[in-house]
C-alpha cells in the first residue's frame, strides 16, 4: 500500500511527523490527525490519512452513484480539489457487478479515479428504490429491477461487493428505517444494525486496506440512539457514521440527534453524517462536531439548472436570467464562472447537455470551497465569526434564520447576531 499523500493541499507536517504518519498508516488504513479544534463549538479541522491520499476535513464528498459523477470527468473532479467521492454498492452491484469491477482493478481502476472512494452498503437504496423489499435477520430480500431475479443483500454480501469494489471506506449494512417511522420497528432496526455490524466486521476480507465504518441508528429516539452509541463504540472500527437522519424528519429533531451522537462518539475517530449537503446544514453540523458529509443534492439540482451561491441559489433556467450577463457568482473562481454568463447558460439549456455540466462543475466547486473556508476558519480560530458572516450572507435578515439552526448553534455557544 502506497504511503498516503496530501491531495493537492499544502501539508504542514514536519519531516518527523511525516515519517510517523507513514509508520502509522503502514499499520492502519486510516489515521485521523486533529489539526485544530474550535474552542467555542464542537468543530474540528483534521487530516484524514486514507490509502489513496490524505483528506482535509471537514469534507464534503460528491456522490458518483454509478461509478461516475454525472457528466464530469475524473480530471475535472481532481482539478476542483475533490479528495474523496462516493460510489453506490447497490447500483454497481447490479450493474456492472462485482466480478467485472474486480477484473478492472476495483472501482478505482474501473472509473480511473486515483484518490479516495467511499462506498455505502446498499441498505438505503434497498429501502428507498426497491419496491417490495423484505427485511429479515438474514438480510434484505428484494427483486432485481433489471431482470426480476430474487436477491438477498446480507451483511456478508454487501461487504463482499464492497471488497470487490476496493473502496477506501466501506459502510456496514444497516437495517434502514425511515426517520418518519416510530415505534418498535425503530428499536428492532437499531439492535439488528448492531448485530449486522459484527457480521460485517467479520466478513471484511481487507481490513488492512479498506476501512469499515459503523452506522449509528436509533431514529429520533434519544434512548435508542444512546444505546446504539454505547454498543457500537465498543467495536474497534476506524470511523462512525450517523445514519437514519436526513430523511423527512423535522429539523428540530434532526440536530438534536446529531449533537447527541457526536457527544458520545470518540474524539479521535472521524464522524460521517450521511446524506447532509445543504450549505446551512453543513455549517451547523460542523459546529456540532461532524467531519464528513455526502449528498446528491448539489449535483442533482445542477442538472435542473439550479446553481448554488452564498446567498442561496440562482435558477439559471428562469426567464429573469435571459439577459443577465454576469457570471453565476462574480466571486467564484470555478471554470464556469470564469468564462460564462448566466444569460449564456440560460440559453444553452435549450440547446445542449453541456449546460448541465457547467452548473455541476460550479456546484461542486461551491460545496468544496465552502468546506475549505470552514476548515480554514477553524484552523485560524475564527469559526464563530465565519458562522455569523455566513448566515448574514445566506439570509436576507435575522428573522429569516431557520429557528432550528439558531437553536442548534446556541447549543454550542453561538448566539446568532
Amino acid at each position, binding site marked *: 500500500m502506497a504511503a498516503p499523500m496530501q491531495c493537492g493541499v499544502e501539508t504542514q507536517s514536519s519531516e518527523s511527523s511525516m515519517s510517523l504518519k507513514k509508520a502509522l498508516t503502514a499499520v492502519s488504513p486510516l489515521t485521523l490527525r486533529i489539526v485544530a479544534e474550535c474552542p467555542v463549538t464542537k468543530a474540528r479541522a483534521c487530516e484524514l490519512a486514507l490509502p489513496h491520499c490524505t483528506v482535509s476535513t471537514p469534507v464534503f464528498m460528491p456522490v458518483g452513484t*454509478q461509478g461516475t459523477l*454525472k457528466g464530469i*470527468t475524473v480530471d475535472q473532479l481532481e482539478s476542483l480539489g475533490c479528495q474523496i467521492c462516493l460510489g453506490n454498492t447497490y447500483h454497481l452491484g447490479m450493474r456492472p457487478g462485482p466480478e467485472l469491477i474486480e477484473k*478492472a482493478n476495483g472501482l478505482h481502476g474501473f*472509473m480511473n479515479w486515483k484518490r479516495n472512494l467511499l462506498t455505502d452498503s446498499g441498505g438505503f437504496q434497498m429501502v428507498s428504490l426497491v419496491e417490495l423489499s423484505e427485511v429479515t435477520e438474514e438480510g434484505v430480500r428484494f427483486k432485481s429491477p433489471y431482470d426480476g431475479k430474487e436477491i438477498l443483500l446480507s451483511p456478508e454480501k454487501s461487504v463482499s461487493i464492497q471488497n470487490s469494489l476496493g473502496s477506501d471506506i466501506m459502510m456496514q449494512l444497516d437495517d434502514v428505517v425511515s426517520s418518519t417511522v416510530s415505534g418498535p420497528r425503530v428499536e428492532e432496526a437499531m439492535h439488528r444494525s448492531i448485530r449486522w455490524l459484527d457480521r460485517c466486521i467479520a466478513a471484511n476480507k481487507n481490513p488492512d486496506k479498506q476501512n469499515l465504518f459503523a452506522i449509528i441508528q436509533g431514529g429520533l429516539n434519544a434512548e435508542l440512539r444512546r444505546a446504539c452509541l454505547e454498543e457500537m463504540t465498543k467495536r474497534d472500527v476506524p470511523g462512525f457514521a450517523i445514519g437514519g437522519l436526513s430523511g423527512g424528519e423535522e429539523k428540530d429533531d434532526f440536530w438534536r440527534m446529531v449533537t447527541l451522537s457526536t457527544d458520545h462518539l470518540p474524539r479521535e475517530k472521524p464522524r460521517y453524517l450521511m446524506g447532509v449537503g445543504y450549505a446551512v446544514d453543513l455549517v451547523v453540523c460542523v459546529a456540532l462536531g461532524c467531519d464528513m458529509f455526502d449528498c446528491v443534492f448539489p449535483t442533482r439540482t445542477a442538472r435542473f439548472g439550479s446553481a448554488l451561491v452564498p446567498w442561496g441559489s440562482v435558477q439559471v433556467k428562469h426567464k429573469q436570467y435571459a439577459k443577465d450577463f454576469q457570471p453565476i457568482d462574480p466571486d467564484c473562481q470555478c471554470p464556469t464562472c470564469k468564462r460564462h*454568463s448566466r*444569460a449564456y447558460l440560460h440559453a444553452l439549456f435549450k*440547446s445542449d447537455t453541456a449546460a448541465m455540466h457547467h452548473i455541476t462543475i460550479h456546484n461542486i466547486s461551491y460545496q468544496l470551497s465552502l468546506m475549505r473556508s470552514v476548515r480554514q476558519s477553524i484552523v485560524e480560530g475564527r469559526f464563530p465569526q465565519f458562522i455569523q458572516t455566513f448566515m448574514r450572507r445566506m439570509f436576507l435578515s435575522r428573522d429569516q434564520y431557520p429557528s432550528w439552526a439558531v437553536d442548534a448553534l446556541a447549543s454550542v455557544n453561538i448566539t446568532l447576531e
Partner: protein
Amino acid sequence: MHLELTRVVQGSGRLGVLRGLSRTRPHHSLETPGCLLYTHLGSVPHLTQDTLHTLKDLPSVTQVTLSDIAEHQEVLESFKEGFRKFAGLHDTVLYCSLHDPAALCPAGYTTNKTVSVWGSGGRMELTVTKFMSLQKCTQPDWYTSMADGETWQVNTTRKRVRKSVDRTLAHLDECLLLHHKLPELEEVSVFGVVEGGDIVDERLRSARETAKRPVVGFCLDGFQTGFMEPSVRAQLIAAVTEELPEDKPRLLPGVGRPDEVLACVEAGVDVFEGFFPFQVTERGCALCFRFDVTPDPESAVLELNKEEEVVRNGNVNRDDQTQMTPFEINLKDKRYEDDFGPLVKGCGCYSCQNHQRAYLHHLLVTNELLAGVLLMIHNTSHYLGFFKALRAALASDQLELLKRRVMEAGGRESD
C-alpha cells in the same frame, strides 16, 4: 478571405489553406480539405472548455447555426457585442450557417420570401431582413446567405427545383444589399449558395449565376447525406465545381461520412461541416475506422495491388442518419462488457488514454451523461485525425490507398 491552393489534381481534389478568415483574428487559417467545429449554440455537444481542450489541433473555425441562435435574437441585441463574446468563445473564427446539419428540417415551410428554422420553442420564419438582422447581432466572421434548399425530397419537381434556384439568387442579392449597409458586417465574408437539386442544368445555372455575385466562396446545398445516390452526388458536384472559380473555396454542408467526404473531395470540395462525430456519439458508438497510410512508396504499391476485402456500405437504409455506419463500433454491444482495451488502440485522445471499452459500455448501459462526454472527445479526435490524414494523402498522392484503408472491414474489430 482567400484560398491559397498548394496542389490541384484533376478528379482527385485540391489541397490548400484558407486565410484571412477573420478581421480580428488574422493569424487563423484553415487547411483544406478541412472540417469546421460543430456546436450547439457555441458549445461542442456535451463538452465544456476543459473537456474540449483535451483535444489538440481543433479547427480554427467554429460553426453555429441560426436554428440555435434565432430565438435568442433579443438577448444578443441587448448584449450588443456579438455571439462570440456572448458564448465565451475567445479565440476562434465564427461561421454562421442557416441550418443544423444534424437536424432534419420538416418540408413545406419555405415560401418565396421566407425560410424557416426550428429552435427549442418551435418554428421561426425568416425573411431576408430578419436573416440579416440576425447576422447583425451575431457578428460572425463568415456566413452563408439565406437559401431555399428544399429540393431533397424524392419527388421534387423540376418546377420546384427551378424555384429554389431563383429564390436563392434573389435572397443572395438582397442579403448582399443589406450586408453593405451594415457597419457590423463590414469585413465579414459571405458565401453564395448553389442549389439545383439533382437536375444538372439547374445546378449549372445556379453555379454560374452565383459565381457572378461578389461572394467569397460557395456553399453547395441540397447534397446532404441520405438524399442522393453517392455517384449522382459526386457527378453533380464535379459539374458544379467546373463552373466555379478555382480560387474560391467550396463548402459542402450535410455530408460527413468518411467515404462520402473522400468522394466529395475528389469532386472538388474544400470544406465540410464537422457534425458526423456528434451523430456517432448520439447512437453510443465510437469511430474506429483506420486512416493510417504507410509512408513508404514501395509497400504502398504492394498494398494497392493486394486483393483486399473492401467493405460495401454497411447500412442499407441511407435515409436514416441515426443508423450505424461501417466506420464505428457499437459500445452498447455485450461483447464490450469486459473489454478492457481503449476505444481505439493507439488513439491519443483523453478517453482512450484514461478509459476502457468496458467502462464506456457500462456508462451507456446505465444511461450516464459521461458517456456522451467521452465519446464526443474520442469521435472528434478520430475525425480530425482522418482529415489530417486526408490532407497528407493528397499531398503525397496516396488518396487511393487512403480510400482502401478507410473502407477496410478489419479495422472495425477489437485488436
